[in-house]
């Protein structure tokens, strides 16, 4: 086995799903639909049980119990092909239940914003203890009394019924069965950037991201104090009215996860951020600034139930019921054959322009030419791996397939494959999408968890990770963004 200290390495990846059907009503799309006649009861009727979420084949792939390619052979619809005996733990991840989620939200809450009934907290504590990710001190914090906000009229806050809130009313929390769980309060009074729905979104992101970090630490049997730096790559906005996107949810996650010797910062690039962050983590390690850098993306509450109208129209369960989080540890090379090839970073520049040809030239052709590789030399391309069972019924197409067809067309134009081989490219060099539609989370990196053992044992030589970001959504530019990086095995 050849080792190579000229590049940083990937030491581990953790992929966590937090089942949150009760929070689905507060996703962006559901929150805009639920006021309409009959929608809430339709939504309630279409929520999935924890067992169904665990047995769902793409979720089993996400946590590592099956390879992504196994989905090619699972009869569609996948939601009817639940895997018998499926476990909520996998080689590199886990599926956390909603009962535990309420405890995680209390654990994430430093300001007495979240109220949950004592019985539910006791249950959460018990389950979290069994799950084995948290310390005794953490478990004690789950059941601690909520500190009353100074001077607040608490009973009014607790009784307010707004399903969403623009004023000082609390947001009520419900479990999947519709029973009342508790509430999330407002931040600073008269601060429109700290309404309960915003704080709920940020707390859900923090809690799921910290859970992914804990899962990673357990997987690698690592002391949390070994982590030097945490790079966030999610799309939440943490701040107040003077600094709406102040950030550093990464450091908040590091604190919750017990990484006492780390600091952190957030990389913001829409869905492209994870690959930017992976490259930056590699650069920090390779330059010797830090030794152990965690890249973490927390779950996106706003994206729960995003495609609900399409699913309801087709009598499908609401599949977007999980917060998905990923954590990756980057460390110095030399002890592992796996290399994060910092010399093959593809970047989409301001001058690149918006044509698919220019984008893929920047993200695929250019970096591979630098590495003296043909497109067909890459064993696997990891693109945006959105689960097509979620997107297709809603008319949003099959995102990975579109991307694979574009790469294949590029290869065909270069004469590397024939035009008649474009369709087969996704089987040979790609995979079916399997990741929940959580924005930055499907952006290539969940495949890194699958690639890692295969790169180590030699069954995979190299994989190209490509992410794209829809910067135009923020109305500051009409551009999109993209970045790619090769991960390979020293030979």
């Amino acid at each position, binding site marked *: 086995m050849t080792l190579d200290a000229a590049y940083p390495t990937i030491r581990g990846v953790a992929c966590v799903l937090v089942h949150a059907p009760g929070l689905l009503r507060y996703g962006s799309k559901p929150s805009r639909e639920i006021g309409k006649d009959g929608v809430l009861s339709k939504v309630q009727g279409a929520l999935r049980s924890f067992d169904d979420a665990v047995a769902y084949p793409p979720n089993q792939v996400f946590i590592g119990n099956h390879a992504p390619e196994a989905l090619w052979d699972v009869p569609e619809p996948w939601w009817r092909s639940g895997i018998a005996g499926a476990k909520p733990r996998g080689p590199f991840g886990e599926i956390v239940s909603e009962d535990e989620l309420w405890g995680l939200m209390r654990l994430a809450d430093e300001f007495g914003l979240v109220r949950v009934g004592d019985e539910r907290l006791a249950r959460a504590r018990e389950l979290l203890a069994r799950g084995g990710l948290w310390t005794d001190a953490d478990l004690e914090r789950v059941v601690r009394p909520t500190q009353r906000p100074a001077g607040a009229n608490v009973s009014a806050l607790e009784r307010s019924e707004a399903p969403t809130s623009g004023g000082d009313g609390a947001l009520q929390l419900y479990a999947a069965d519709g029973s009342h769980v508790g509430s999330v309060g407002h931040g600073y009074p008269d601060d429109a950037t700290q309404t309960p729905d915003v704080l709920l979104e940020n707390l859900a992101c923090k809690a799921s991201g910290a859970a992914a970090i804990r899962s990673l630490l357990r997987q690698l049997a690592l002391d949390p104090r070994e982590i030097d730096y945490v790079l966030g790559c999610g799309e939440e906005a943490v701040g107040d009215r003077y600094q709406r996107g102040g950030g550093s949810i990464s450091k908040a996650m590091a604190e919750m996860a017990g990484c006492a010797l780390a600091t952190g910062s957030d990389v913001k690039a829409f869905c492209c951020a994870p690959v930017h962050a992976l490259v930056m983590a590699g650069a920090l390690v390779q330059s010797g600034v830090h030794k152990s850098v965690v890249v973490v993306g927390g779950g996106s509450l706003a994206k729960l139930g995003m495609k609900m109208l399409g699913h309801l129209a087709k009598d499908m369960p609401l599949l977007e019921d999980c917060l998905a989080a990923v954590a990756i540890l980057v460390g110095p090379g030399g002890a592992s054959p796996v290399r994060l090839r910092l010399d093959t970073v593809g970047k989409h520049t301001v001058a690149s322009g918006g*044509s*698919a040809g220019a984008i893929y030239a920047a993200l695929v052709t250019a970096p591979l030419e630098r590495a003296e590789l043909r497109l067909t030399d890459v064993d696997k391309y990891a693109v945006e791996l959105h689960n097509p069972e979620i997107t297709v019924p809603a*008319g949003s197409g099959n995102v990975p397939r579109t991307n694979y067809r574009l790469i294949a*067309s590029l290869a065909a*134009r270069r004469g590397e494959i024939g035009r008649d081989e*474009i369709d087969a490219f996704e089987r040979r060099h790609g995979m079916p999408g399997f990741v929940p539609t959580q924005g930055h989370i499907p952006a290539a990196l969940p495949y890194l968890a699958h690639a890692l053992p295969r790169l180590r044992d030699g069954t995979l030589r190299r994989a190209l990770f490509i992410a794209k970001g829809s910067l135009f959504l923020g109305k500051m530019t009409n551009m999109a963004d993209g970045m790619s990086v090769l991960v390979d095995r020293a030979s």
Partner: protein
Amino acid sequence: MILGAAEPDYVEMMAETVTAGDPTYTGPLAGVSLGLPVYHVTEPEMKALSDPAVYRDQIELSELAMETERIWERVRQARGRTETA
């Protein structure tokens, strides 16, 4: 209107929206018939009118990757309805 979406279902919905009216009846254009001429950028008519070098640089790769026949079918349907209206 010139569209660039890759998904035939989406192209159909957008083409309908700017011609006969929003087929989902959910947006501000529900029930409003704009009757605008709508094309998909990959259609032969678009290709014929554009500078070949520009077209090749901007569109060629996308055209190879898209299901152009299905896309053209949908947008022509929507256009046909306007032209007879």
